């Protein structure tokens, strides 16, 4: 029986304090939920426990003795196994080989595939008898791959098991099997850390819960028996630090700038109907996997439109790619993955903001003078209060909040009329979050129409004029926003849960 104790652990990265004095105590034979909003620090904590990161401060104790993991292998050796959010499988290897990769069995020096298959079968059968251990992993569906990952973690027979959003892509049936399994492991004395943002699951299976918020503890190891749904939610979002509702909104929202009618896409959307008006902020809410970002990308030419139509200013259009979206239709897109898609980290602030207007800045000879770029960019840096030592600073060195501001600035510079904003404040501190929300309000008052994609309920309720609810790649309802968290969030969640009837709810 092993106890794992995280004692006041801190971890900082350039520009952001991911964890600040976080503690967690894990007892053998329990299922311990780890909860928190996106950016709260859960993944960082998991990576420290599994040996991918080293903490800057604090200690990790195993059975009361301090340990230091130099690499994931050390954590494995110490009896800690994990199922991470990203897939960690070898595509061309078989299911069986992936499960037993750490310790391939041999017979007279050669890899023993018979043993691999029988062993892997044992663990796989606990979850899903349908997967053949001999097929290559790359031929499996996402859900099946996740099952294989879980089987792999189980096969290590670890004393401590960490699961980071393990049910993100699997079916209800498989989830039930998994939970039954976890309960059996618990009875055997295994300690399980269960990271999930699905409240129902946490209530169904966890014994105790630790909540993180903005890198700090909001609760440490509280028993689930004493917990209510409302209290858990408020611990996660921090009632005292309520996100401010936006100031007065535009009165006239009658001009439709973007309209989707019966839209179907090649990635699975069906019969998507919605309209966006000038100066409006329309929220698109949904959980992970609902299909919101995919819809945004499809609107911008990233995926094929297979049915229905998209109209801009009343005229049907077919957008080929982002270049056309910007130059022809003045649509901008702020990606949820700002480091990979929203910014060029190795380039300067100046270049990152001016990227959308280079062609406009060029003079008659096609040249852009050194001053021209700076003059074009400076006003936006000031207006958005972007904190940077100079315009030449590499964007990669800015804090998350300032990076996001740069990402927004480039669309303001481009005079975008429609802005699709995807998870704008993930991993950003509360003060900057408010700044960004106010900014969105301000530009919408100036006439920019915003489609706000977010899974941050408080943000959505505070900022959006109306909220579309998405689930399973369809729009399942629309909620008029009264900006009151309790009522609005209830209405939204009701839409999502009603989907079991397979009928999109009517507009409230």
């Amino acid at each position, binding site marked *: 029986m092993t106890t794992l104790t995280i004692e006041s652990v801190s971890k900082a990265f350039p520009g952001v304090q991911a964890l600040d004095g976080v503690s967690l105590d894990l007892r053998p034979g329990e299922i311990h939920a780890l909860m928190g909003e996106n950016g709260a620090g859960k993944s960082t904590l998991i990576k420290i426990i599994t040996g991918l990161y080293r903490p800057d401060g604090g200690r990790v104790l195993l059975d009361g003795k301090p340990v230091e993991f130099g690499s*994931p292998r050390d954590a494995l050796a110490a009896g800690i196994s994990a199922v*991470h959010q990203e897939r960690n*499988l070898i595509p061309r290897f078989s299911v069986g*080989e992936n499960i037993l990769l750490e310790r391939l069995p041999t017979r007279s020096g050669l*890899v023993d595939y018979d043993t691999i298959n029988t062993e892997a079968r044992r663990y796989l059968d606990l979850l899903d008898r349908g997967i053949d251990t001999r097929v290559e992993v790359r031929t499996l569906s996402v859900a099946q791959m996740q099952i294989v990952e879980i089987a792999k973690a189980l096969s290590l027979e670890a004393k401590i098991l960490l699961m980071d959003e393990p049910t993100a892509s699997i079916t209800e049936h498989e989830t039930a099997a998994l939970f039954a399994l976890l309960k059996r492991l618990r009875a055997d004395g295994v300690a399980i850390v269960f990271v999930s943002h699905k409240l129902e699951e946490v209530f169904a299976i966890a014994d105790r819960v630790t909540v993180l918020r903005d890198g700090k503890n909001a609760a440490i190891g509280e028993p689930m028996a004493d917990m209510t749904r409302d209290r858990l939610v408020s611990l996660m979002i921090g009632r005292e630090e309520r996100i401010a509702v936006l100031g007065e909104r535009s009165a006239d929202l009658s001009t439709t700038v973007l309209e989707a009618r019966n839209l179907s896409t090649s990635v699975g959307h069906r019969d998507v109907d919605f309209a966006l008006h000038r100066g409006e902020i329309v929220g698109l809410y949904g959980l992970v996997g609902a299909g919101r970002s995919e819809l945004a990308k499809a609107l911008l030419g990233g995926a094929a439109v297979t049915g229905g139509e998209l109209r801009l200013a009343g005229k049907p259009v077919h957008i080929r790619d982002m270049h056309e979206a910007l130059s022809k239709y003045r649509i901008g897109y702020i990606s949820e993955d700002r480091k990979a898609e929203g910014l060029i980290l190795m380039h300067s602030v100046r270049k990152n903001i001016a990227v959308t207007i280079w062609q406009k800045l060029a003079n008659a000879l096609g040249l852009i003078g050194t001053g021209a770029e700076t003059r074009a960019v400076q006003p936006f840096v000031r207006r958005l209060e972007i904190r940077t030592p100079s315009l030449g600073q590499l964007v990669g060195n800015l804090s998350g909040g300032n990076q996001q501001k740069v990402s927004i600035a480039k669309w303001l510079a481009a005079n975008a009329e429609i802005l699709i904003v995807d998870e704008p404040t993930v991993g950003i501190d509360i003060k900057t979050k408010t700044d960004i929300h106010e900014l969105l309000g301000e530009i919408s008052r100036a006439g920019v129409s915003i489609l706000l994609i977010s899974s941050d309920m408080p943000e959505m309720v505070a900022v959006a004029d109306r909220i579309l609810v998405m689930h399973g790649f369809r729009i399942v309802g629309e909620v008029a926003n009264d900006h009151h968290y309790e009522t609005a969030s209830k209405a939204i969640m009701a839409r999502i849960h009603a989907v079991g009837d397979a009928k999109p709810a009517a507009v409230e």
Partner: protein
Amino acid sequence: MSGLLRRLLLVEWSGLAAAIVIGAVVLAFLSPNFLTEFNIYVMLRSFCVSLLVGFAQMVTLGVGQMNISVGALGGLVAISFGGMMEVLGLPIIVAVPLALAIGALGGLINGLLTERTGINGFIITLATASAFTGINLGITESIPFYNMPPALVAFGEQRFLAFPYLLIAPVIVAALLGLFFARTVPGRQLLAVGGNPQAADLSGISRGRVIVLAHVLSGGLAAVAAVLAVAQLGSAQPTIGADWLLLSFAAPIIGGAALTGGYISVLGTTFAVILIALIENGMVLAKVDPYWVQFLLGALILAAVWLNRWRAVRTGTG
């Protein structure tokens, strides 16, 4: 698509096998000299060195790396081999293992530099290629070693019916490599690192050790190719390896190797080299301009790559 067709497509070398059969039939039809014992012997001789050159690059591709120094290292091993026998008077039985050791050492240098510094293997091996060539030319001053032991020369020429004695080496190596990648732990680890380096790391596989191993193997295989080349030519030419670079990539790629690592095919590479040898032979028989070979090689690579992508998309594994 129909199940059988899909399964056939999933077998990477099916296209190649078909091309070989068709090519052979066509050639047999067009030229009476094609199916003669002597002609097959000639084809198999050129096949021997080429296959090993293909294998030398195949092992680095498997781990997601490249070895630009395949030819340069081969040339250096070739003249070292020749020099050891001609100048130092070492017997063949001593010179061969020493030559292989030199190749492995070159590979070790490549591997260690790549792994320790974290610099792109392309640049590292581009640099070492230049260094190896320099040492080669510095030692030989472009003059080959002509006095090779008669036993070696004989080995390079003799045959049993259509099969040159030389063929023994690539056949054995192919079998060993096939076994290595399919059934041994280090072989599987190599492909794991190539297939998904992060996953391999999380599973406790030492990425650094595996990369070094791949480069050492690559160097060793280049050395085998060099030794065979010396036997085949009957002399240790400093120009051995000068034209290996393209072939070293062409063979595994046409044979279906994944460019990013994680998948290689011994059988596929073998078929690819057979196809190339067939084409070269066909050119000679048809008295076609030998320059067509260059052209066709490039076209073949493009076709193979395109075909792989098409296949991946159609079978849903892309």
